[in-house]
Every structure is written in C-alpha cells, then in structure tokens.
C-alpha cells in the first residue's frame, strides 16, 4: 500500500510538472506537442550530470546541479519550437512531432556514441545512475520520499501564483486568448510567447529527469519516455488548463500508472490474473475515456495554435 502511494506520488509529480509546462505554453498561444522530446532532453541532461558528478558530491549540490542540467537542456531544446512557431509561423503540430522524434533519436545517437567511445563493445543506449539516485531519496519508515515530490509541489504553487497573481501571468494568458488585443495595449506578443515556450521547456525538462529516475536506476534512451509527454497533455486538458485542477488530474493518472508497477503486491488484483499488458495499457485507456467525457466542454485558450501575425485583422 505504501509502495502504491509512493509510486502514485512520484508519477503524479512528473505529470504535474510536464502538464504545467504545457499549460504555460498553451496559455501563451503555442501548442506544445513536443513535450515528449523536451522530456527526453531534460532526462538526458540530468542523467549525464548524475553520471559525471564525482561520487562524493553532497546530496544538496547533487540535486541542485542535476535539476539545473535538466532545466537547461529542456529550455535550449524548446527553443527549436519557439523559433519555428513564433518567428517562422510553422505548423505547430508538425514541428512538435518532429521534436519528439528528434529528441529520442538524438539522445540515442548521443548516448550510444558516448558508450561506444568508453568501450567499443558497448553499443547499448543506457545510462546508469545507481549511486547518484540515492541523493534524491529519504526513507521515512518504508516510504521513500523523493525530493522531486517537493519540487513538484513548489512548481504547482509557483505556477498558480505566477499565472493568476502577477502582471506577467495575466499578460501571458492574454496573448493566448486574443493576441491582437494584447498587442494593442502594448504587450509584446512574441516575447510573451517565447517566455511561455521556455517555461514549458524548463518544466518539461525537469519532468523528464523525474520520470526516468522514478522507478529504475538506469535508463535506455531508445525508449524515449513512452508517451508520458502526451499523458501530461491529457492531464492538462482534463485539468482545463488550470493549475489546481491539473494537480488533481495528475494524481488520478499517476495512480493508474503506479498500479502497473505494483499490482503484483495486491492479492485481489493478482487473483484476477490479468496479463501485465492490461496494466500497461491502463493509463492510456483511462485518459482516452476521460478525454471523451470532458473534451466536449473544454475551454482551451482561444488563440492557441494560431501563429501571431501583426498585420492580420
């Protein structure tokens, strides 16, 4: 039971972080389908940092540096979307899809090259971080508290305050609703959209490193992040683009994802004798069903996905 709670919380943290990232980007008016690729890049940054930091690094420094590396790589990678979608008015779905493919392929090529350079026989795309991962965990009576859970809560609170209580957040949302009106009162729409996409890169990258360290202590980059970026988008839609609702939605989705990891620990679930693939499918099925029932009255930012053209009426 404690294990289920632990996994639920850690997966919910991933979903909250990434969904908030998507939320910032969409509120500024840019659809970020590329979250999956951004997560892979953030995960790569964090994993590399864990691999190369010397063994004796203090836990605090370790966490700080790993988080910074993930955030930095995620933000740099999200620039690909920002430049294409904001400056060049490219099709945002197409560019996002390309970023997902590019993220996984790029990370695989990079990690394989690194592994092969270390020893010629090693052609795997895996990075190991068994020791480094311990810095993130605190054992509280059987429950493994992960510092990332705290980070997710902080990010949630910060997102709420920034979006609803600051001038920046309100202006950002205006750019996603009616950019022409925002521009007419002197807001620089391009800058705001850049800010939105970069924040989503930051949160997406952070979510990526949390995801790959959540369950296991090594990661095979060929697998990308298994559609988690899209699950996060589903969480965001279910959460109606509002931080507090997103948090609740993330808990629900995180629970079903966690079931896949720990269902063998429950006698009644074991007694059902369902194949393990059913549990693997569960989060995706649930999100599909939930979306089918909630999308009808969804209130997406009005101008999302539409490139802003100053000359347009």
């Amino acid at each position, binding site marked *: 039971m404690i294990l289920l709670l632990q996994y639920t919380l850690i997966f919910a943290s991933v979903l909250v972080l990434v969904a908030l990232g998507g939320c910032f980007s969409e509120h500024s008016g840019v659809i970020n389908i590329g979250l999956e690729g951004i997560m892979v890049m953030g995960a790569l940054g964090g994993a590399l940092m864990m691999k190369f930091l010397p063994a004796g690094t203090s836990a605090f420094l370790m966490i700080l540096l790993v988080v910074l590396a993930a955030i930095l790589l995620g933000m740099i990678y999200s620039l690909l979307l920002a430049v294409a979608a904001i400056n*060049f008015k490219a099709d945002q779905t*197409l560019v996002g899809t390309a970023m997902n493919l590019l993220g996984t392929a790029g990370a695989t090529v990079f990690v*394989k*090259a690194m592994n092969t350079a270390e020893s010629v026989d090693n052609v795997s795309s895996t990075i190991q971080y068994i020791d480094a991962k311990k810095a993130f965990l605190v054992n509280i009576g059987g429950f493994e508290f992960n510092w990332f859970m705290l980070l997710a809560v902080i990010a949630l609170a910060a997102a709420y305050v920034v979006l609803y209580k600051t001038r920046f957040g309100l202006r950002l949302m205006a750019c996603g609703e009616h950019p022409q009106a925002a521009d007419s009162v002197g807001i620089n729409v391009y800058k705001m959209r850049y800010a939105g996409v970069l924040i989503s890169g930051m949160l997406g990258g952070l979510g990526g490193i949390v995801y790959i360290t959540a369950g296991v202590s090594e990661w095979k980059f060929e697998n990308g992040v*298994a*559609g988690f970026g899209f699950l996060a988008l589903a969480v965001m839609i279910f959460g109606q683009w509002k931080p507090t609702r997103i948090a609740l939605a993330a808990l629900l989705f995180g629970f079903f994802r966690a079931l896949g990891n720990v269902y063998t620990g429950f006698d009644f679930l074991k007694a059902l004798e369902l194949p393990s693939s059913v549990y693997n*499918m569960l989060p995706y099925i649930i999100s*599909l069903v939930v*979306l089918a029932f909630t999308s009808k009255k969804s209130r997406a930012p009005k101008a999302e996905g539409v490139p802003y053209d100053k000359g347009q009426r």
Partner: protein
Amino acid sequence: MKHEKRSLLRNNAVQSLLASLLCILIGLLVGYVVLLIINPAGAGEAITTIVKNFMTYSRRNAQLKYLGSTLVKTAPLLMCSLSVLFAYKVGLFNIGAAGQYVVGAGASLYCALAWHMPWYVCLLAAVVAGAALGAVSGLLKAYCNVNEVISCIMLNWISLYLVNTLLSRVKEATSPYTLTLASTNPGAILPRLPAFCMAWFNDNQYVTIAIPLAVLIAVAIWVLLEKTKLGYELKATGCNKFAAKYCGMQENKNLILTMGIAGALVGMGAAMLFLTGFEQWQCTQSSIPGMGFNGIAAAFLGGLNPLGTILSSYFIQHITNGGAYVDKTMYSAQISDFISALIIYLCGFVLFFKFALNNWLDRREEKKAARVAESAEEGGKAE
C-alpha cells in the same frame, strides 16, 4: 489580354520541389556535422554510406537484391505517408499511423498464423483493423471534440500492448518472434511479381505485388482528392467545418470517413510488409515501430502530393536502410532516424520558404518594372 510570362520559380510544384531538396540538403548537412562531432575520422565515409545504401555493395547482383529489399520496405512507408497526407488534406493530423500500422500487422499475422487464411483475407483483415482504429479517433473527434493527436497517441500505445499480447499466442516457442509464414502458412505470402520482373531484383524472394500496388494506390488517392466529389467535400470540411456544414455536407461523417480511410491505408501497408515474410513481429517490443512516424516525414517531404510522396518515401527508406550499413564501432544506426526527424522539422519551414521566395520574386519584378519605366522616361527626354 496579354499573357504574362511567369517565372518558373513561381510554379507551386517547382517551389515545393526546391523546398524539399533544401530540407534534404540541410538535413544531411546537419547529420554530417553530428557525425563529425561524434568521431571525425569516419564521418565522411558514414554519410556517403547512408546516401549510397545498397550501392555500397560492389557486385551488381547484390546491389539489385538490396534495391529490392529497400523497395519492399518502401511500399508500407508509402502507404503510411499517403495516409498522413490524406488526413492532412482534410485538416487532421494522423499521428496514429504508427498505431494503425501495429494493428494492421497484428490482424494480418494473426489471420495468417492462427487461422491459416489465404493472403487476400489477411490483407483485408489488416485493412479493416486499421480502418476501425482510425475511425475511433475520427469518432472521438467528431462527437467528443477530442483532439485527434492526443487520442491517436493513446491508441498507439494501447494497440502496441494489445497486439503484443495477441501475437504472443502465435510466436515461436524459444524466441520472442512470431512464427514464420513460410513454415506455417505459405498461402498467406503475397504473390510474387512475374518472373521477368523478379529478374530486375536478382530474384529477391520478398519482392511481391505489394510494390506496384502501393504505387497504384498513390495514384488512386491523387484521383480521389483532386478529381472526385468526395475528395472535394473532404477537403472543404478540412478547410472550414462550419462552412461545409452550411453547404449541406455531413461534416461529422466526413471526419470519421477520413480517419477510417487513413487507417485503412496504413493497415494495408503493414500487411504489405508482414505478409511478404520479410520481417517477423517481435512480441516483446516496448516501443512503437517507427514506420508510421517516418510516414509523416515522407508525406511532408513529398510536398503533400501523392505522387511526390512516391519519391520521398523511397528517399526516406533509402537513407533508413543506409543507416544500417554505417560502421557500428563508431556510430549507431539511429543516425538515419535523426536525419529524417530533422527533415520533418525543416519541413515546418516550407511555408515560410515559399512566402520568402515569392516576396523576393515580387521585389525583383518591381525593380525590373521600375527600371523599364525609368529607361522609357529617359528615352522620351532624349527625343
């Protein structure tokens, strides 16, 4: 009225071709730079290997044989890209091609291996399975307003796990791969081409009617989109759902139909590969096969024209196969995935490229007109 001579560069098809070539060029260049960074020693050789693909073999027979192998995998890719293109023309982004490919493979292989059906039944089963999956996304979009991109991704993963479970019933006892068609049910293998055609590919046994069939379907899709009432209605729905409704078209039906057709195309494509016996399905697969995603690359690289995608599908498959030949002690085969992903990314800039090109042409013409006017004026003064 005087017929104005238009610059060749103004032609839309020429512009698309230029843009695609530019995408390929930049994609290969960036790929080369990445190879240089990884290991400068073999980069030049690696990139030529990728571009040459089967031409790396020195013997002509081997070249022909591996040209055949590339074509065998081009057929399903062409089907995937046609599907993406078809949906895109109707304003839908069929990222679910990957999942429809998976169910197509699952349905055709299960019919062939478990029920020992002949090839045409297996092919039909794949078409139906793909169409059904596509129609689910269409239904969700039409009646529940679920974004087709999200629902397609969810269905991709669901179908992967489903098909893995289904096909592990017909797998080899000692390996994670499905039984071979040749040993279990040779009747499910697609018919080969006539003997004189087989000689072109040095009797590569996997070359089947799938290849000409895929090309025929590309032509059929072009006709459907450009020359029929249904194609016109579908495109109109894509342009503006509400206007289409106002004109008396059934916009929801059109949405579902589009996704159904798109799914059917991909399902058929999957059968075209798996019913040749070229590949077996690996039942422990933990990531979705890249074929459907490469279809997106091919569709956009082909300038969203069914006939253009024939060429672009071949190109994408050509470099993907070429990637398998690079020196594994230095680089990984994924470098080709990387290059095709880059190409998709660059395709996002095509619209801007055309816009900039037209702007440049406009300016040039204006200057020319101004110069002509000026010289005419000067000529007038001299008199």
